[in-house]
């Protein structure tokens, strides 16, 4: 107990490194699983693991989602997650958009599609670190997420309620 799981969807390896380091610096014990595009994220959440390469499985407590990613972008991911939610198949972890775009239309569209929050990546390294720390502390410590149902860890996220 005591370890949180964060799922980070981010295709830029440099941003990945900065975000991972920022999370590490918060001192909150976390396991961070990284996926590099939307379809990997959907697989992570809903596909039964093919092998044991994804140790532990489990439902993440927080999803950090980039908008601009190859194959399947953040908006498409939000659409899929919303469909899953509307079908009543699952109550998902909070999704925080963490993106380079500070476009008001993008923000509105993300909220409309069900993102819990939208944080434009600040441009400076120190500010990015601070923003990531605030996100992680707020969503993992202050906020109450949906209860984690670990009854069937083989199929994280797909549970009938």
């Amino acid at each position, binding site marked *: 107990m005591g370890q949180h799981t964060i799922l980070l969807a981010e295709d830029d390896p440099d941003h990945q490194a900065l975000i991972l380091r920022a999370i590490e610096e918060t001192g909150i014990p976390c396991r961070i699983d990284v996926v590099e595009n939307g379809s990997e994220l959907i697989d992570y959440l809903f596909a039964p693991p093919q092998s044991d390469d994804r140790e532990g499985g489990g439902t993440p407590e927080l999803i950090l989602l980039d908008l601009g990613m190859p194959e399947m972008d953040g908006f498409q991911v939000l659409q899929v997650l919303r469909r899953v939610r509307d079908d009543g198949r699952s109550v998902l972890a*909070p999704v925080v958009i963490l993106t380079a775009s500070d476009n008001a239309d993008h923000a509105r569209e993300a909220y409309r599609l069900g993102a819990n929050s*939208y944080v434009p990546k600040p441009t400076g390294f120190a500010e990015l670190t601070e923003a990531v720390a605030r996100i992680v502390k707020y969503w993992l410590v202050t906020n109450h997420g*949906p*209860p984690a149902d670990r009854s069937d860890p083989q199929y994280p996220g797909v549970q009938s309620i």
Partner: protein
Amino acid sequence: MLVLSRDCDTAIRIGPNIKIKVLSIRKQRVKLGVDAPSSVRVWREEIFPEVAGNDPSAQPTASSSPRQQHLSVLVVEDDPEHCELIRRTLSQCVSSTARVASTGKLAMEALGGPNGSGLVEKPPQLVLLDLCLPDMPGLEVLRWIRAHDSLQTMPVVVLSADHGDATVTSCIEAGANAFVGKSVGYREFSESVARIAQFWGGYCRLPKATLETPA
């Protein structure tokens, strides 16, 4: 001096595992970040060289860290002491305007509700919603909010003393953006409100308060 092309987006390696990376080029300013393992002490994290340009009006945006935005909040809460605590904490943490509604009906009215003359054109940027209201459950207010297109993107943070799994789940299913338990202690509750204010009023981008034009 460091010379960078306009669309330079590559990192410059300056040592093993240490890179200088262009984070953005905007408004005549280049923002650089140092990407280094935590064992490396970084003395100066940002460098802002002038980029040659002839736009005299371009001035650095004096955005403090984190960027502050004025936050308009609707506080739906019937307990006067909690109201006062929330209002005070909000104003201490961020530049904000808080409007209080002490019942579910007043909350709906504040948004242009059932007997009003139509939904307000500029809804608040954030709603703090207590679940236990004198006239109706807060959950009903939340469902009413989410049933309206123009209020769908307005973030709602539920504040509740009851933070059992079933309550949290039903609020999230009804479209709450976040759920924060009301602590019993005055100080803890005030800290929770402060964290809410700092997160939503800080780095977070809130949807602009605009009405969608009906198709």
